[in-house]
């Protein structure tokens, strides 16, 4: 049953804009979806390798800036009289550049920070995000600093034989988000179910044991960080071309927290986890907005995060899995009590 759930959810999500005309709701879904892509990428690190990266927004923001700058063009003096001048390119190239640049930063951060684990790793990633934010704030020639990069062109998609489509409407952007999210989901699913994915989970369960059977810890974790950062960069690119304005506030810690909440509430280490968490926390602001101020909404977020950690430390997805497994077991054995469900195999 759980096998059919992802395509069903995808179809429902694809049909959603047909019945949904409220631009505010669509906007919330697109924004929530973009952060869900970030959460899917974070899950690769947090859920499958067990490394809590609290600087994940850095890769998202780097992707946003890389994509926007590729599309807008820039003119920066490096040292002396050397200037780098770049004319704006097609926004889709920006999207690809964002993936490559963010992936590169993921590789570098992974290489440097996977010498340490646990609390040290968490703090290194936070520091990285802060440094990047300060660079975005102060390298005014490149990023416009607090004045923000504005008039970022909308995403354009070229179709062979059909010409080019500029994504102007919310519905078009919704489908772009959904397409990229599906792709991100599939990439992560493919990675997780490969030999490489088993190595990652081995490291999470018992690093020394995994290394003793020949898993190269630093290499595996670095590859995971590279993929994770690249996907986050893709999400950042979508963000930049959808909102068409970015400032150094994209690097705020609160956005990392949003992604972490999505992963943890949905279920870390489950493919569906960030999607479930993303759907809940992407739509929660819409549900809460009529009743409370944004500050109060954040209080609710914090409370929900704490409650989930206390009541469902594994997140929602494993419980859904359990429920289906228990139902199957009931059917198989008549009314006999459910056997203890096998969890690992079906994720």
């Amino acid at each position, binding site marked *: 049953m759980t096998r059919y759930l992802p395509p069903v959810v995808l179809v429902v999500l694809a049909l959603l804009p047909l019945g949904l005309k409220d631009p505010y709701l669509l906007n919330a879904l697109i924004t929530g979806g973009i952060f869900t892509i970030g959460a899917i990428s974070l899950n690769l690190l947090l859920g499958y390798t067990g490394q*809590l990266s609290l600087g994940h927004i850095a890769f998202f923001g780097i992707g946003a800036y890389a994509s926007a700058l590729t599309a807008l063009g820039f003119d920066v003096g490096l040292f002396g009289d050397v200037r780098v001048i770049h004319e704006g390119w097609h926004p889709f190239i920006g999207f690809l550049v964002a993936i490559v640049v963010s992936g590169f930063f993921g590789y570098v951060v992974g290489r440097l920070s996977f010498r*340490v684990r646990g609390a040290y790793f968490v703090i290194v990633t936070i520091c990285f995000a802060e440094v990047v934010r*300060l660079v975005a704030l102060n390298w005014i020639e490149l990023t416009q600093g607090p004045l923000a990069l504005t008039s970022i062109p909308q995403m354009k998609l070229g179709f062979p034989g059909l010409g080019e489509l500029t994504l102007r409407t919310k519905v078009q952007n919704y489908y772009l988000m959904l397409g990229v999210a599906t792709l991100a989901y599939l990439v992560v699913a493919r990675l997780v179910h490969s030999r490489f994915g088993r190595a990652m989970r081995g490291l999470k369960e018992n690093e020394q044991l995994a290394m003793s059977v020949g898993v190269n810890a630093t290499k595996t974790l670095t590859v995971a960080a590279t993929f994770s950062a690249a996907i986050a960069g893709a999400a950042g690119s979508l963000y930049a071309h959808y909102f068409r304005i970015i400032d150094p506030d994209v690097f705020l810690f609160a956005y990392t927290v949003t992604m972490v909440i999505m992963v943890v509430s949905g279920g870390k280490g489950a493919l569906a986890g960030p999607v479930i968490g993303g759907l809940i926390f992407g739509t929660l602001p819409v549900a809460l907005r009529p009743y409370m101020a944004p*500050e*109060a909404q954040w*209080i609710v977020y*914090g409370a929900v995060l*704490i409650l989930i950690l206390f009541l469902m430390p594994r997140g929602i997805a494993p419980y859904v899995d359990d429920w289906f497994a228990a139902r199957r077991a009931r059917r198989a054995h008549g009314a006999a009590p459910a056997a203890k469900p096998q969890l690992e195999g079906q994720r």
Partner: protein
Amino acid sequence: MDQFLQHLVNAMVLGGAYALLGIGLTLIFGIMNVVNFTHGALYTFGAYAMYLASTALGMNFFLALPFAIVAGLALGALLELTLLRPLRGADIDTTMLVMIGAGIILQSGTLWIFGGVAKAIPSPFPDAPLQFAGVSISWLRLFVLLAAAALIALAYAMINGTRLGRAMRATFQDADTAALMGVNVRLIYTATFALGSSFAAAAGALLGPVYVVFPQMGDLAAVKAFAIVILGGLGSIAGATIGGFVLALAEEFGAGYVSSGYRDAMGFLIIIAVLLMKPTGLFARAERVG
């Protein structure tokens, strides 16, 4: 030369408050193995307690400071009893995330109650700075330096000279053995978290009047506290004290001679450099690091 001395004096003032922040965080990590993500919120809380006490409650500045510290102590104890005590034995990531949740609630609560506009805490000191050998320092900053030094000395005396301090050190070395020797470890955890929180609140209450008070002031403070603690080695109190002053020196001289925009980046660059060369921190003994 005068400018150099001036930077040095400024760094000392800042370093005192940073050391307080770092000691609080390192104490909690060392003894409880909890990365306290409410540390920044507690710093903000201390500053707002100071603001409330000296404006709405009409307290004397010198009375408002201990009030803010005690308020931090109480909030810390409350957080430990409600959130951390039930989670004892949970893995470090879970407690980290719970503390992030608590930090969000505290920060958003502050924003909700007080609004986003920065507030100034009135200072009882004369505006004219103290001039000495070409260096000028405001009376307020001098007071901050002395108060921070006194609190650091108090912390050392408490940890090294009292029964509570001895029990804390015993728990730090080995919680199970300490429990067998009759130490009430649960009480020690609560006391540790409350004390660590009160140090963060003290740092906020001291730096609040120097700068301004706003709900997000704790964000940078928290990351700086992490920087200090990594620099000194997680769990090392002497390391945190030295780390606080090293960070302040790096920021002050970095801002003075390199670029003021990257002032706040100094701490992070230090962390990255330290972790690349000596991941256990500069002052930690190897076995202390978790």
